[in-house]
């Protein structure tokens, strides 16, 4: 029945990804925690997985005019050297330590998500 989990992980990972909520984490968690894949291999698969998901999500979001393209450029401009440095560091650190660091990162994010308070005006988003 492992394929059921694969389908569920990829489906919900993509849902959360398309919502822009960091869904990449879901497939990554499935690959490492459930399948026991090495951290680096799982990260590579997760990155490729995100590309078609992002393409679909971006088409829909662009139609709803939810993307502020002006903000994208500065983020990507310095993001690219960041990616290069990050990928290089990941390789240096190795899967073993990397998976512990990722666990620590998830711990911080998880606590933050749980302590997140809903904004006072719940649908501030309906304006504009």
């Amino acid at each position, binding site marked *: 029945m492992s394929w059921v989990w694969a389908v569920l992980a990829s489906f919900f990972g993509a849902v959360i990804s398309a919502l822009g909520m960091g869904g990449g984490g879901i497939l990554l968690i499935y690959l490492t925690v459930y399948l026991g894949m090495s951290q680096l291999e799982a990260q590579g698969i997760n990155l490729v997985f995100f590309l078609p998901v992002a393409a679909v999500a971006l088409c829909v979001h662009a139609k709803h005019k939810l993307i502020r393209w002006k903000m994208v450029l500065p983020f990507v401009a310095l993001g690219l050297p960041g990616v290069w440095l990050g*990928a290089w560091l990941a390789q240096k650190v190795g899967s073993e330590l990397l998976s512990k660091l990722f666990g620590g990162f998830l711990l911080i994010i998880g606590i933050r998500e749980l302590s997140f308070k809903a904004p006072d005006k719940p649908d501030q988003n309906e304006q504009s």
Partner: protein
Amino acid sequence: MKHHKRWLAWPMGLAVGLLNGFFGSGGGMVGVPMLRILGLETQESHATCIAVIAPLAAVSAGLYLYREAFALRDALLYLPGGLAGALAGAWLLPRLKTVWIRRGFGVLILFAAVRLLTR
């Protein structure tokens, strides 16, 4: 948009890129609150964050492939579920209060964190 904070986009981009390259994920988890700080509305920040991460993830994936960290065909298995989920999530974004998803997501990743740290 809060103009006085705009320059922050550059260092924030560097941080998002670093995370994306290092963890192969997680750029979105920090990118969205950053875009909020820069003055974007909630849903705008979620959608814009995907536009930021997509090119970064493409380069990152290329680097991982180049270093032979994984085989491309191993990712294919997750494509159908991924495409269906992407459509569902993109449809949901303008219709949803994200707070409940965040709670569920928070529980899931705390569970994963404990598993990763204790294995």
